[in-house]
């Protein structure tokens, strides 16, 4: 398993950092290869520029400004997002990662002579995990249509393998969270990670023996 973890919180020591660490520990325990992309610590620039927009369809040159990030996406078979929900959606820095990195011929194929519509190009991704925190309640989030969850699980999900396994966990009402509610949520993250990567992952020892 090759897992890419995309993490987007500005402050170390945040609850999101704790979620990230559990995700990484689970991947490590499972003997997975993983890469962590910390968008804030990378100083990732989320604004798609004018030259990028003009050259958007010009593959493979379109990936040049973000080649490293594109390579991560093509490398992975498991894609995991850890982020706080702001204004019901993804932090701008993560939205910009989608805008700039999930390019034509990286994440999808544009319509051409044979095909009328956009086609997915991330078929190798068979597992997706989305872990977030929300200030709003479950009801309010649902009323607004859960844009963050939908952008990732459905929007990006449509570009992945059609039968990709998907897990999601959110801690709602973060501003009135307690130590107990946060601990419960971290347990939920552990359980969802087991569900996502559990059975199909070879144990680390086995992997070493076969090499």
């Amino acid at each position: 398993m090759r897992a890419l973890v995309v993490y987007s919180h500005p402050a170390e020591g945040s609850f999101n950092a704790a979620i990230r660490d559990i995700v990484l520990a689970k991947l490590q325990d499972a003997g997975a290869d993983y890469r962590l992309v910390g968008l804030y610590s990378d100083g990732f620039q989320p604004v798609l520029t004018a030259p990028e927009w003009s050259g958007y369809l010009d593959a493979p040159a379109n990936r040049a400004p973000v080649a490293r990030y594109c390579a991560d996406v093509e490398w992975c078979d498991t894609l995991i997002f850890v982020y706080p929900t702001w204004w019901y959606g993804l932090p701008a820095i993560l939205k910009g990662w989608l805008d700039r990195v999930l390019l034509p011929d990286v994440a999808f194929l544009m319509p051409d002579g044979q095909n009328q519509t956009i086609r997915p190009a991330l078929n190798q991704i068979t597992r997706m995990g989305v872990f977030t925190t929300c200030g709003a309640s479950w009801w309010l989030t649902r009323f607004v249509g859960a844009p963050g969850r939908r952008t990732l699980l459905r929007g990006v999900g449509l570009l992945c393998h059609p039968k990709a396994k998907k897990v999601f966990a959110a801690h709602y009402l973060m501003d009135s969270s307690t130590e107990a509610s946060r601990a419960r949520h971290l347990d939920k993250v552990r359980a969802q990670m087991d569900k996502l990567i559990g059975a199909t992952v070879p144990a680390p020892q086995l992997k070493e023996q076969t090499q």
Partner: protein
Amino acid sequence: MPRALVVFAHPCEESFSSALHGATLSALAKGGWEVDDCDLYAEGFSPILTAQERRDYHDTAINTAPVQGYVDRLRAADALVLVFPVWNFGYPAILKGFFDRVFLPCVSFTLGEERLKPCLDNIRKIATITTYGATPMRAFLAGDPPRKLIKRAVWGVTKAKKVRYLALHDMNNATQAKREGFLARVSTEMAAF
């Protein structure tokens, strides 16, 4: 004269979004609005909410300081008009960051004892002018996040009386005639806004 804040998010002058932006500005002016044109790319807006802003987020004495100019423009507006392309089922990052950084506690909402209270009740009308690569069906299947965000979340902090959402879908297959038709519709609607 009522004042309309037009928030625009596209990097390129030659784009169709830019044409929609131009048509919106002139139609609003023709309709008797004083227009405040907020072109996020041209103004070099940074959409990244910083670690310090996160720490100060709920401290309403200082949370607006890094974006005070934008807060003032929002508070001075009687209408909010958003012009942007839908990218990856959502706002361009630069516009998402405008919400993250400017729509702060005590700017857009207050956390009351029990519930959120809207703060932008100066905004009486909201319009969105946008384009999708997706077909209407695909946008619907993906849950159409930008439409719901504007009609529910942004509406929720303004309680605006009028909300218009004008969208052209399936841009990759849109003919010249279809694009011109949409431009004309935008001009008509915004002149009568």
